[in-house]
């Protein structure tokens, strides 16, 4: 009895010892800011009390919940729509492209792969700037130059809500697809070919193979990346803000996700305590959201 117990204890010690460096880094860089934000959210740290702030209890939370007024619900709904549209398109397109890249006998596979990840090789703000000024600009943008050549009148791509939403989605897909393609591409290669061979013998078609073999096989591998991408998409700020709302370059479109909404209604006040409370509230909303869509975060064993 005793040796077994010691062995178990040893396993625990061993496990924590080996994963300690990684967990410690996560504590420092990821968890500490959350705890710190939580702490600041209980204080009155702002421009007038930058160094001499005091604990003031839940006052910031009371005000933070007031922010979530009439403008907040549309922003939340839009964020959900944005997340769903982007994730569905991203997964479908990435899956199709990754499957094509894995076609047997494709000689230029590596070249295609490298070209497809090009958007990834540039810092995000450079890409967004390039799209905004190079592609969508209504005076000089490439799209309007093409429109003109085709005999259409120029379009203000980023001015209307609907069209700006589509443009932002295009840019977001452009930025995010390389990651998804790489992940799915890698996962596809780990699928055991013998499964397909037996399926082929059974006369299964492409769709059947996809649904019954490929997707179940790659799901555990891509699940963490997909969940992480869902969160990043939900929290997306740069694309929408830089494309349509950047200070000095607003385009007239009113597409607000909860993060851009929180930015305009809280972060610009320089009230750090209050902004922290808003951050924590968004954090909680997102966690609830993730539980609603998926009772238990995927951890396949």
């Amino acid at each position, binding site marked *: 009895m005793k040796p077994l117990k010691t062995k178990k204890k040893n396993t625990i010690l061993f496990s*924590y010892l080996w994963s300690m460096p990684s967990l*410690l880094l996560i*504590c*420092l860089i990821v968890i*500490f800011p959350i*705890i710190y934000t939580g702490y600041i959210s209980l204080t*009155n740290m*702002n*421009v*007038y009390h*930058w*160094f001499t702030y005091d604990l003031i209890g839940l006052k910031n939370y009371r*005000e933070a919940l007031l922010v979530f007024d009439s403008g907040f619900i549309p922003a939340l709904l839009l964020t959900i729509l944005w997340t769903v549209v982007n994730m569905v398109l991203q997964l479908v397109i990435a899956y199709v492209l990754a499957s094509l890249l894995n076609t047997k006998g494709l000689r230029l596979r590596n070249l295609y792969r490298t070209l497809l990840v090009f958007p990834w090789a540039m810092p995000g703000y450079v890409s967004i700037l390039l799209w905004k*000024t190079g592609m969508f*600009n*209504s*005076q*000089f943008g490439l799209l309007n130059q093409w429109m003109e050549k085709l005999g259409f009148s120029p379009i*203000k791509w980023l*001015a209307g809500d609907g069209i700006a939403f589509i443009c932002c989605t295009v840019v977001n897909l452009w930025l995010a697809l390389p990651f998804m393609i790489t992940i799915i591409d890698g996962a596809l290669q780990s699928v055991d070919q013998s499964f397909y061979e037996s399926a082929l013998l059974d006369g299964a078609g492409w769709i059947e193979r996809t649904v019954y073999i490929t997707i179940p096989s790659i799901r555990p591998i891509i699940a963490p990346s997909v969940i992480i991408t869902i969160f990043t998409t939900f929290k997306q700020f740069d694309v929408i803000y830089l494309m349509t709302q*950047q*200070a*000095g*370059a*607003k*385009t*007239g479109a*009113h597409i607000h996700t909860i993060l851009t909404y929180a930015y*305009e*209604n*809280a972060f*610009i*006040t*320089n*009230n750090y305590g*209050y902004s922290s409370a808003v951050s924590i509230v968004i954090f909680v909303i997102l966690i609830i959201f993730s539980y609603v869509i998926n009772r238990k975060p995927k951890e396949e064993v």
Partner: protein
Amino acid sequence: MKRIIASLLSIVMLMGLLCSCGGKSQGLTEEERNIIVIWHDKEEAVAEALLTELQNSLPEVDIRLEYKSNLTEALKMVGNDPKAAPDLYFFAHDKIGVYAEMGILEPITELIAKEKLENACVGITLDAASYKGEIYQLPIYFETLLFMYNRLYMADEKVPETTEELYAYMEEKTHGGHYGFVEQHSTAYYSAGWIHGFGGYIMNGEGKPGLNMPETMAAMEYHKKFVELMPGESEYATVNTLFQEGKAHSTIGGPWLVSASRAAGMDLGIAPMPVIDESGIPVSPYMGVQGVQVLKYAAENKTDTVKKVLDALMQPEVGIVLAKVSGCAPAVKACYEAEEVISDDVVMAMRETAENTIPMPNCPEMDIMWTVAADMLVNINMSGQDVKESCEAAQKKAEELIDKMQ
């Protein structure tokens, strides 16, 4: 499980400990006191000229002029941390209120006698640099927006003197990809000129927003017809490219546009702002004073060196050299005795215009107004919303957000 919690807790406590025991600096060595770090966000030409001037007059001081992107945000973050904060920073006067309230700025009069400052500098620059009765900035040069035109299209005698003349010109010339006049019509900094021209304001000196004033609304209503004859995009790149490529005949722009346009070979003219017919006041954009602010830590621990640097910065040579590279008006009066300044038409036009306009408010509340006012402008100019409703809503929003600052 208990052990996990215990170990996690101890990590958190360890981190807390590490954070709280941030070293109070023990006195600086002679050598450290001789280093002056200055943050700035200026173009390379201005920075180089400034550094050369300082090095020439103070060879014994180790001056480090460091370019900092996102300077204003970085300063909020580093606060007064002697390990990371600069000793001085070179920036516009409009953020003084924020940093003064944060408690990281030293009033400049602690280092230079007030009388000396008042004798040396152009009055309006010191007014701009004052917050709650204290002067926080040593002004170096000041700037504002100017009316610029391309002589290829607009002859000197055709330059509009009133806004109605400007509108007539725009109506006549705006077609086929050409524009009579362009400006960044939906940003607060550019549109402030129109609002001031009607006697309204975005925010007054006491930190009170004025977006729902009848004057502001009148300005917005009047301005709309001009916007209709301008491109839909209002951001810097579009407006300036149109002007520099010769697609727009005239514009409102800052001094930086002067050198760029001349370098591109344009015969550029500069004229006074057109007068608004209804009010008789010219379009009056904001004035900004670029100058040096001193952080508290440096003022207390490097007093002598900082004083030396400030003295060197007040020499007329510095103002003259910087005026030439930046196209702005020097803040030190003595500069205007130099032939090279008097003969420079851009610099003189700048002084003329800037002295008769309104400095940007420097109170912390102004940080909010840039965003709220821009939202309002976009709603009116680009989304076609009702002027009165938009102004009222923006005023309410501004008041709410100001409330939330505390």
